[in-house]
């Protein structure tokens, strides 16, 4: 495969599909979009199979370089982290198209074109190896998403689309200024080079904050998360899936790719800020989720809580934490996507997102109830499902850095169980108090085909996470080595070794900076 521009091809296929959709009729556009996304899925599988994940492999693979834009280049390339996020993208896209097959009735060609264009940009974000190319891809995603929310969204869609657009734009523009500064300082736009460049620690703080403004909004972190519930609630089902599944991951990817390796000192210095915001997010948004009466809003708030687990994992500065953060991102991408699909399934039947309008669905929709149950449990982080692995690793990682943060964030698991089980109880259990809800038919074959692959992936990740940990292990090890010098001293001081009497083991608060092992 070496030399073959597979990454460009993966962007060219949906781009061609998008253009073709604009000139096609409604039904043709559906098929074009489905075929284009499936082709991309196949290409994604080929990409993964050809990705060399042995420890000795080059960090950056499938590199392409064409300096055709003057100041910046068409430079692509992936490491294991990017590979997994690309895989997530191409996996979710055909499902999104399938979810819109019937639900979207008006202006289908434009809708499909917007989604395919979105796919191009998402792949572009994860493959870009040029700073400015990354920024262009990162920002351009606003256009199709603005249109998707604004044209095909719910009743309050215009407010939500503006809020989404302006919030994220304001977050990102400062990052651009920081990028310009970095390029003038380092004299290159090449991301791998910049990842190894040592910026002056005093300046790093400013650069870090500029990048943080962008990624924190995208992620989203408390208190700049307020655009997310609005955008989710108003977006069409597939829009919510892609928003929660992939777009939010761009924030986490940004932290992994830029903030941590490029500004390790600043990251260490400002880690307490991230921890603080994340702790608030976990507890506060979980409690907010508990009292929601709108299903999509509930899942949106749960996304904020889960993303906070990602940020604490990332800023734990150790392999377990960062691997865990990646696993939560992947797991959450699948699970929240699936949950939005589950909401979409019943929304298509009853056209309401009010939780109280449903009830006792396990009686008339048993297949639905089983799948919904699986994703609910995955969202809670039940062992054997994808989210357990990630949350466990993240919290283990952060425990080595700060036991207090670990303590507070772990409550998120309990609260998560509370709001998810409460949601499930109100929808699937109890009496069938609404006649129209009780008359809803069970999943159609199409809907099963949408949910079953996600269910399989969720279980796979939960039972055999090694498949997903292996590609990124050496990249995360490299990242850990990069930030090691700046790592803040942990307070837990875990030591591996001979069994120690319980009374002694309890007092290690004053021990020196680094634990021997972790």
């Amino acid at each position: 495969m070496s030399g073959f521009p597979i990454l460009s091809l993966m962007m060219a296929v949906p781009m061609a599909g998008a253009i073709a959709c604009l000139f096609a009729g409604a039904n043709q556009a559906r098929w074009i979009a489905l075929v284009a996304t499936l082709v991309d899925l196949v290409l994604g599988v080929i990409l993964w199979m050809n990705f060399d994940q042995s420890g000795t492999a080059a960090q950056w693979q499938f590199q392409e370089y064409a300096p055709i834009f003057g100041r910046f280049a068409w430079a692509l390339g992936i490491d294991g982290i990017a590979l997994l996020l690309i895989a997530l993208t191409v996996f979710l896209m055909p499902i999104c198209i399938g979810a819109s097959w019937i639900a979207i009735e008006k202006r289908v060609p434009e809708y499909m074109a917007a989604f395919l264009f979105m796919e191009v940009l998402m792949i572009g974000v994860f493959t870009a190896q040029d700073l400015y190319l990354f920024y262009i891809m990162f920002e351009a995603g606003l256009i199709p998403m603005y249109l998707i929310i604004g044209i095909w969204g719910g009743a309050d869609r215009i407010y939500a689309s503006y809020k989404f657009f302006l919030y994220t734009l304001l977050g990102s523009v400062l990052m651009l200024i920081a990028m310009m500064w970095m390029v003038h300082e380092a004299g290159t736009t090449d991301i791998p080079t910049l990842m190894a460049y040592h910026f002056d620690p005093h300046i790093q703080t400013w650069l870090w904050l500029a990048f943080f403004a962008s990624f924190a909004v995208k992620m989203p972190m408390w208190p700049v998360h307020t655009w997310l519930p609005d955008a989710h609630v108003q977006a069409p089902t597939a829009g919510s899936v892609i928003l929660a599944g992939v777009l939010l991951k761009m924030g986490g990817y940004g932290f992994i790719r830029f903030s941590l390796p490029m500004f390790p000192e600043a990251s260490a210095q400002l880690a307490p800020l991230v921890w603080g915001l994340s702790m608030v997010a976990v507890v506060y948004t979980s409690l907010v989720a508990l009292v929601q009466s709108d299903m999509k809003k509930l899942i949106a708030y749960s996304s904020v809580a889960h993303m906070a687990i990602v940020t604490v994992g990332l800023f734990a500065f150790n392999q377990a934490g960062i691997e865990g953060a990646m696993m939560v991102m992947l797991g959450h991408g699948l699970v929240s996507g699936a949950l939005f699909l589950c909401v979409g399934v019943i929304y298509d039947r009853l056209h309401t997102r009010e939780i109280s309008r449903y009830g006792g669905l396990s009686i008339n929709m048993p297949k639905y109830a089983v799948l919904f149950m699986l994703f609910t449990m995955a969202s809670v982080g039940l062992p054997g499902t994808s989210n357990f692995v990630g949350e466990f690793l993240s919290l283990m990682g952060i425990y080595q850095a700060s036991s207090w943060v670990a303590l507070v964030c772990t409550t998120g698991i309990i609260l998560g169980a509370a709001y998810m089980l409460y949601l499930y109880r109100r929808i699937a259990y109890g009496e069938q108090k609404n006649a129209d809800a009780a008359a809803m038919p069970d999943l159609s074959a199409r809907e099963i085909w949408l949910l079953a692959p996600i269910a399989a992936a969720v279980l796979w990740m939960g039972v055999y996470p090694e498949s997903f940990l292996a590609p990124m292990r050496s990249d995360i090890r490299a990242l850990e080595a990069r930030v090691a010098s700046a790592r803040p001293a942990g307070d837990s001081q875990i030591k591996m070794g001979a069994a120690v009497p319980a009374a002694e083991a309890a007092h290690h608060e004053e021990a020196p900076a680094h634990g021997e092992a972790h």
Partner: protein
Amino acid sequence: MIDSASLLAVLPELILTAGGLILMLIAAYGGDATARLVNWLSVLTLAIAGLALSTSLAHGPDAFDGLVRADAFSVFAKALIYGAGAAAILLAPRYFLVGGALRAEYPVLILFSSIGMGMMVSAGDLLTLYVGLEMQSLAAYVLASFMRQDERSSEAGLKYFVLGSLASGILLYGSALLYGFTGGTSFDGIAVALSDGVSKGELFGLVFVLAGLAFKISAVPFHMWTPDVYEGAPTPVTTFFASAPKVAAIGLTVRVAIEALGPAGLDWQQVVIFVALASILFGAVAAIGQTNIKRLMAYSSINNVGFALIGLATGTPAGAAATMSYMAIYVVMTIGGFACILQMRDAEGRPVETIASLAGLSRSRQGLAAALAIFMFSMAGIPPLFGFWAKFLVFDAAVAAGLTALAAFGIAMSVIGAFYYLKIIKTMYFDEPAAPYEARGGAVENIILTACAVVIVFGYFLNPVLDKASAAAAASLF
């Protein structure tokens, strides 16, 4: 001293003068029946003048003992000016036909205005500057009131004339002060005189000259005429005002600031920074409440001038190159945008100007809506459209020159501007359809519109060319 090299250096202006005079005779004797012919011949004249630019460059840079400059900078600006002028001529007939004012004088006036604009950007002396500016303005005053029977058009012309004269007076006063305190009118002479420190009198002259120029580029706080004139003038004329004279005035400002006032850089830098930020902020905030699309475009142009001036504020070659690149991209976006606005005609073909009438356009005229959306997103500076690159270049120059705070502030305010561009897209795509427009646009309009849209979407492939040309243009100033 008149020599052949000097004459060849101003060959484009000579061609335009000869073409303009001949076409005026044709118009005078042939009457309005010749309007279409004169239109095409004017475009041809502009094209020939454009070809002659390379000749003028070969015989530059100084002509007539430094009164006129024929350097890479003037060539860059003139290419934009001629292109924009030609587009303004091509877009006009259909509009004037409906308004009953399809007259042959229109293209001729644009030719004369182009001569003035050419002189502005190649001025090497305060006198050439003033003559060029007035020549451009006089033609522009007439153009603004071209629809004589229309009250708004006449009002626009009068307003433009009164305020324009005031600005010319201010500029002339500043020039007189500079002349008095430096002892020369040539840019080089002024620069030499300023290099030993800036006296109070010179400072006054500098401020007055900049104020006069700020009026011409419609920068805050000298912008008040812009919305009224843009709204009142016939739409093709507005297209012209928003494109070619903007390039000329910005080009002139860059040249004066760097060639003549370069040694006083620190003094004018603060003025330019203030004007730039004020224009960005005011242009963005005031545009939000507009209901007339031409007024909105007027505020948008104020906003854009602010961004372009950020490049100048750096005072570096990279900054000057960024400003000129900005204008190049801005001209394409503006002409494309106006090519869409000109197609806003009701079912009987009468022009419509309210933003509300755009509602649901994406369903009745898909292509038109998509094109206008492209231009609006581009003006808002959203990648991957080319308008982003324009903003990128000026902010990059500012960061390179150490003006990081200015760049951060300016770019944050660009988000405010994004709001009103989004409003237009929202109206076209999200709202329920209003009364539909005329079913089809004119062929010429559509060609120009498509060409502009292609440049805006695929513009990044032009980067190497644009970088080289703008860098050469800027280098000829320093």
